[in-house]
């Protein structure tokens, strides 16, 4: 589904991603871990098409197409969804309105009819239960005045409504209490099919107990320095990142 090769990206002249290789197939869950500032969010944003970042080298293929040539909205319409680490507030625009516009633009892109209003509202009501948010959040302005945890749940709610092919969750777990964490993880798991894939960015093994990854990658200083199965996350939990910082990843073996 997604194949990243030797991806280099920089912002304002500073190189942040220094050669990323990553392959994600449908049906898989990948986790990316790594210390603060290692470039996890940068990778997520570059994949989503944030224009502030300049891709200086490498390529990204997505379902056989060159992803880097697509505009951010076309990437979204092709099924890439980013749950933001810091969800943005949009005053005056209700969640319902945002999702209606989004869903219809995506459907139009695919040559599908607009969704009938009743069907659409039914869809929202069904999906919002998945993240245990009150119906009143449908009418509220997007993320405005939401608590940190509510914002994260709202991202997963949007994910559920838009049902993308590749979901990228950027630290969706941070700021969530343990119950909310279970709710969110449960939501993500329910959306999992053999045709879609998930890329989870996290600092904590905790989340991975609920969203069980097939692969774990460790990002450090803009490069993936180690990949492994879900056990890798447990090891990291035990020994931290010092070993990479000390420049001897061999220790883990």
């Amino acid at each position, binding site marked *: 589904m997604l194949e990243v090769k030797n991806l280099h990206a920089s912002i304002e002249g500073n190189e942040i991603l220094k050669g990323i290789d990553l392959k994600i197939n449908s049906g898989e869950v990948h986790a990316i871990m790594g210390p603060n500032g290692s470039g996890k969010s940068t990778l997520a944003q570059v994949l*989503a*098409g*944030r*224009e*502030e970042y300049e891709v200086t080298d490498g390529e990204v293929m997505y379902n056989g197409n060159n992803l880097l040539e697509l*505009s*951010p*909205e076309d*990437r*979204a*319409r092709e099924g890439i*969804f*980013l749950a*933001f680490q810091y*969800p*943005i507030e*949009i*005053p*005056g*625009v*209700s969640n319902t*309105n*945002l*999702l209606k*516009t*989004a*869903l219809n*633009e*995506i459907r139009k*892109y695919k040559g599908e009819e607009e969704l009938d209003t009743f069907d659409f509202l039914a869809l929202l009501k069904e999906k919002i239960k998945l993240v245990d948010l009150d119906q009143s959040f449908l009418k509220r*302005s997007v993320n405005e005045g939401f608590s940190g945890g509510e914002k994260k749940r709202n991202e997963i709610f*949007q994910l559920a409504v*838009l049902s993308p092919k590749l979901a990228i969750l950027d630290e969706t777990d941070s700021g969530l209490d343990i119950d909310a964490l279970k709710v969110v993880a449960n939501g993500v798991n329910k959306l999992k099919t053999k045709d879609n894939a998930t890329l989870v960015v996290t600092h904590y093994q905790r989340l991975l107990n609920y969203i069980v990854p097939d692969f774990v990658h460790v990002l450090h200083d803009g490069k993936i320095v180690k990949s492994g199965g879900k056990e890798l996350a447990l090891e990291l939990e035990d020994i931290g990142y010092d070993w990479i910082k000390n420049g001897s990843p061999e220790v883990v073996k």
Partner: protein
Amino acid sequence: MSNTEVKKIEELTNQEYKYGFVTDIEADSLPKGLNEDIIKQVSAKKGEPEFMLEWRLKAYRHWLTMEEPTWPNVNYPPVDYQDIVYYSAPKKQPQLESLDEVDPELLKTYEKLGISLEEQKRLSGVAVDAVFDSVSVATTFKEKLKELGIIFCSFSEAVKDHPDLVKKYLGSVVPYTDNYFATLNSAVFSDGSFVFIPKSVRCPMELSTYFRINAANTGQFERTLIVAEEDSYVSYLEGCTAPMRDENQLHAAVVELVALDNAQIKYSTVQNWYPGDKDGKGGIYNFVTKRGACKGVNSKISWTQVETGSAITWKYPSCILQGDNSVGEFYSVAVTNNLQQADTGTKMIHLGKNTSSTIISKGISAGKSQNSYRGLVKVSKKAKNSRNFSQCDSLLIGDKCGAHTFPYLEINNPTAHIEHEATTSKIGEDQIFYLNQRGIETENAIGLIVNGYIKQVLAELPMEFAVEATKLLSISLEGSVG
């Protein structure tokens, strides 16, 4: 051909005459320049009664003693008033054969606005089919209005057919001495609309200049007068969301509203004059005087405006709250992009007891534009227990534009209750990216954010108008981010 079709075609061929917007003057025009002789000729050509000419001349003589105002926060090269043609008979637009002959840019905009093909033809001067909805609808409307005693006609027509009403109310709200541009208008006004709603009549439909086939020909000095007698109601729509192009650079209109006891007037405008190109060349200067007098007790006047066009807009729809318990409202969205400048706002003058006013102003600035809100709330000594609520918000798109707020308060009665709120916000790139990431393209993303911001004002517009205004806004702001 069926009987009804024949009838419709007949109606249509009689259309121009019926509406009276094409006056019975031979196509000709007067030379450039302004002097008493020109004014006499304008009046004569329009076949006006004596009182009208007198009034024009008084205005002209007064205008000569005035100076052009410099206080608005706008800049423009001096206007040469001797270089303007003050009278030309309504020009027949060249008839085109089909839409293929129309400027494709214009068609694109029509499409975005969702204007029907037939309507597109009418707006761009293509010959239209005989069975054309809004025209036949307009005809039926006219008859219905007549039955109720409502007068809705061109100003020129009113001067001839209803001279007593015109004499009684003309200048009663905006006197010919009022201000530089209103005085000029009083001397040379070309045409406009006249509305009279008799006692206890509720006008059953939105009156709209839209139905006037020759609306584009009312000229650069438009004049409108609306009178609502006791216990009556009227909602009036001015303008059109379709882009309006005009060769006249200066537009100085005057609108006067009079509401008697318990009467209510709702006046909505969508202004979309040509703003000029990206460098600001060729745009319209729109200097308007709009004022309503709540003369009677419990009367109410609401102004709702969506301003997106013109290179320069200078406009302060105001309410004089004279009757006790009268209510004034002002809801405004003013958008400026590229090099546009707008200095707009309102004046609420509280004279009667228990009068109240509401001001909701939403400015949106993009590009290198300048957008100013200027508002006055004045409470006179006698206006006991008057109230005002003002909310003036500015939204900035990009960082080269400016928003300015100039609220003025003159409170002469201690029982007045005045509230003022103001905010400034910015559409951020992270908001746009967030919406892009949900599959929404930038233009629609801005539309969504802007609509959220102006919701309160849009709610005041009649439904259809609101839908068009929404689309219009996103078009006006096209290319303003990134």
